[in-house]
């Protein structure tokens, strides 16, 4: 089964017979009628929540609403053989999108033909100040991991940290950790600390392989933080890193050294 068929099978599990027949009746239309079908989906399809562990095209659809699933399905049925027509149709949907439509479009990016063509749409979603639109690119979405440059990737992760969003839902988080990102996290922490504010403790999971003198100092600061999550993060970094001086630091905190710790406890 191709992805489109897999999506349709999943729709059938959750939709009523009336809803299914609406989806079928909209399926082989012209580009324009598919556009209208995409836009008007909530008039015919409920927002029943999808509770499913299924993964389609590396995408977890758990927690989606049925209308979002149907919209993504409709997008996968667009004929992509003529690039100009295909991209024009999708671009006009992007440019006129209501918030829930934008979420569906961004969630559907990994299904689109010509993956690199959509890069600006994806980075624009990262720039979005609308929480749900940003989340649609950041979480449960393999598009950034597969297509983002290091700069774009780091921007995505930093914005998550900046807004206290759950970075552990980003696909490819550990695989794409890098030196520049580690330095940016350190700098962000310095700014926050100077203002009497904090950063989420689990952000430090991204620095373990990229310790330098400055980050070494940061970890020492975390050890003396009043927040126990910071202490745990510091110990975890020490356990993961090859930076020898930090191994010595950990020894000074025997309680933490002895404990079995995982980043999971900091995933909020």
């Amino acid at each position, binding site marked *: 089964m191709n992805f489109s068929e897999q999506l349709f099978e999943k729709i059938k599990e959750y939709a009523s017979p009336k809803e299914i027949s609406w989806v079928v009746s909209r399926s082989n239309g012209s580009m324009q009628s598919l*556009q*209208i079908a995409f*836009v*008007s989906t*909530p*008039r015919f399809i409920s927002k029943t929540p999808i509770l499913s562990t299924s993964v389609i095209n590396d995408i977890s659809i758990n927690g989606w609403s049925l209308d979002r699933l149907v919209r993504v399905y409709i997008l996968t049925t667009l004929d992509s053989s003529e690039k100009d027509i295909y991209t024009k149709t999708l671009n*006009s949907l992007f*440019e*006129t*999108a*209501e*918030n*829930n*439509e*934008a979420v569906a479009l961004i969630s559907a990016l990994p299904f689109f033909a010509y993956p690199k063509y959509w890069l600006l749409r994806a980075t624009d979603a990262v720039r979005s*100040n*609308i*929480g*749900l639109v*940003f*989340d649609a690119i950041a979480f449960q979405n393999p598009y950034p991991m597969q297509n983002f440059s290091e700069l774009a990737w780091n921007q995505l992760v930093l914005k998550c940290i*900046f*807004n*206290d*969003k*759950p970075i552990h839902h980003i696909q490819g988080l550990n695989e794409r950790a890098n030196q520049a990102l580690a330095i940016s996290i350190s700098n962000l922490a310095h700014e926050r600390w100077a203002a009497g504010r904090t950063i989420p403790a689990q952000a430090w999971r991204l620095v373990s392989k990229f310790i330098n003198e400055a980050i070494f100092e940061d970890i020492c600061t975390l050890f003396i933080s009043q927040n126990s999550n910071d202490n745990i993060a510091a110990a975890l970094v020490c356990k993961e890193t090859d930076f020898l001086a930090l191994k010595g630091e950990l020894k000074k905190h025997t309680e933490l050294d002895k404990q079995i710790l995982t980043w999971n406890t900091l995933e909020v």
Partner: protein
Amino acid sequence: MCQKHAEISQNPSHFEGTAEELATSKSVQANYMDYIKDMKFFDPHIHMTSRTTDDYTALIDAGVVAIIEPAFWLGQPRTGLASFKDYFSSLVGWERFRSSQFGIKHYCTIGLNSREANNEALAEQVMEILPLFLYKEGVVGVGEIGFDDQTAAEEKYYRLQLELSKEAGLPVQVHTPHRDKKKGTELSMSIAIEHGIEPSMVIIDHNNEETVESVLDKGFWAAFTIYPFTKMGNERMVEIVKKYGSERIMINSAADWGISDPLAVPKTAALMKIKGIADADIKLVTYQNAINAFAQSGQINMADFETPVVIDQSLKFNGNTVLRGGQIPRVDKNSLIIS
């Protein structure tokens, strides 16, 4: 609601209450909110794009739980299709999101306004993109459309958009002109009837003492805009409700970039309460009638704003940027310290 003395003498206020009532209304200026403590309001015409977050806070504090933002002109003519497109998408995008951050449910109506209908070359292009917007979630009508100068071009696009509303099964929100209002209102209604549109699907906006009777007699909804100087004052509004009752009458603020008052609906409710209008009637004209009229779109689910307001957990959980980094939406305006 301040009025210039010169204007009052030229256009006498329709305030006909007793001296005692006048004294009461003046003495409660400072605490009018006490009269509407447990009331909820629906403002079916307010241009939040032109307003600040302070206004959103004031609205929710005064009990306004849901609003409709009609598409209108921006104070100056747009020069291209892209600016129309961006404006329409902001009504279903950023503005809808911004409103949700204050716990206010935001709907909109979409249409080509009368003034810009006069740029026919551009109007043609706008007509082409309207269907993409009219079928969207939370779009509760075609609006605001109708007449301004009452030109042939305005009539042409009014008629074309009436047809669109029929096709989409959407109510129509009709703007009536400032000048020659009575004639423009009659014309708007007769054209709607000519197109086979049920009067119950049409909300005639910006009524006054001169237009209301005909609008109600013909079976249309009569909306009143409480707007200082140029439209209705709320003392006059109270008299209208006393005279015509509460059936098919609704009030709105039409607050925009001009000198206007986003709290016009709750303030008028308080004034009605003070002047002895029954709670049930107040509820109809400041809440329920507007909902009934626009819910004919199938796009209003009252549970979205009737259930005690919980700001969407997913939005709250994931933070956002009107309220950066988990900041709470309350700012003490009197505090010197900004933290």
